[in-house]
């Protein structure tokens, strides 16, 4: 694979899969902060 292709693959993976991971982590952290009651509600 050429360097430019590797760079774009890494950028794509980091932004898209990273974005997914970050939004899931954010949801879990915020739910934990609110406590079990609100976690069940949301």
């Amino acid at each position, binding site marked *: 694979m050429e360097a430019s292709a590797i760079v774009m*693959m890494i950028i794509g993976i980091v932004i898209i899969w990273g974005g997914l991971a970050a939004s899931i982590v*954010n*949801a879990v952290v915020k739910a934990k902060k609110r406590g079990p009651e609100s976690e069940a509600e*949301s």
Partner: protein
Amino acid sequence: MENRPQWGSRVGFIMAAAGSAIGLGNIWRFPGVAYENGGGAFFLPYLFALLTAGIPILILEFTIGHRNRAAAPGSFAKIRRGFEGIGWWQLIISFVISVYYAAVIAWALSYTVFSFNLRWGDDTQGFLFGEYLKLAETPGEFGGIVPGVFIPLVIVWVVALFILYSGVKRGIEAANKIMLPLLFVLFTILVIRALTLEGAADGLNAFFKPNWSTILNGKVWVAAYSQIFFSLSIGFAIMVTYSSYLKKKSDITNNAFITGFANSGFELLAGIGVFSILGFMAMQQGVEVNDVVSKGVGLAFVVFPQIINTLPALNGLFGFLFFASLVLAGFTSLISIVETYIAGLQEKFGISRTKAVLFGGGVTAIVSIIFSSNGGLYFLDVVDYFINNFGVALAGLVEVIAVAWIARELGKLQEHANSISDIKLGLWWKVCLAVITPVVLGYMMIDSLIKNFKSNYEGYETWFVTAYGWVVVVLAIVIGFLLPYIKGKTAAGSVSDSKEVSQ
């Protein structure tokens, strides 16, 4: 009136929304579109489209459904009485899509079985069009029913309608909680195997190598917005319906980000898998990757079987993984599409879920028999193209203009979303919806109209594209805007926030 059903958990809702967005197009459309529009360079407009149109529209539809707690017609009617027709129009579009979408899942189901003994043989194209579909010689010719397509189609409908009959929590949520993780596991195994094939690196190089000269080409940006728009299940009532089943204190914006990124994440995975396999095929045939790239029905049912034939080992298992992935991706989308009008019928006529499933689902299943005829593929090709380009895209455009510019409701919707969400919406959201989305969708619409007035889609005869393309599109609009005048038991827009129950 029946109590309103609701999701059992936040995870259940996200699984269902992501399951709806992740469909056949993620596997067979995205890789080819990305390759044709600059490879790695396509990611720039694609990500821009995701953040400026895809996720903002998802947030809009989640908020409309959640705040108004009704299916699409009722939800739009609550914004403004005259908007009820937009909801019905989107439901008719869903109806049209579901009749042919089920047929494609039926093909994938057949091919899952064929994988075990590689029944397609060496001439995969001849097998698909001749032996399996028994395709009519001329477009527009119905011929007879093809049993090999009809039987799996019946199975698809029986399973889909049983899931829908079982309710939101016990049916749709439970099915998505099984099907979506299973899809991810099967497809990941397939991608890992694909990455270990000889020539995979060449395929990935072709897929990711950026062609920066394309970045200033307007068509590439339109392709990026189209891919995001058609892939996220937006513009045809699904996300409005699904979010109407959320509990009152539910997050909106973070859920939209998770859904949007999950959909794109699966597309990226599909791109890696598909191009690794195409790289292997190119190496086997001693040609360039460019010579073997395809997308859509041809990629799935002609090229993939060819590749499966040439694999060094476990050909049947690889075929099973691929076609079973298509079946699962298709099912999670199909049930979401049908649910839109099941919910709409229930609310409009005050009927039980069972009656709505039997009537709405039954009529759809009967109409979809057209696509198990000898001429099915031609009908599917034309209806799919027109209902997406002039149905979904136009309905999305009208929805955004109606909410943002006519009702000027974005402020209230923003307030509602911010009151319950982790991620707060700012001015960017309104700009994306009120300016960027209408401009891009409007351009897409004009561009498609000009293209189709200049020449018939795929060179089909004028009567054929008129009867099965334009007429279907116009009928969806006419019926959609007439339905609000039919008196139902429940006036849309007056659907009350009745007690929430888990079904």
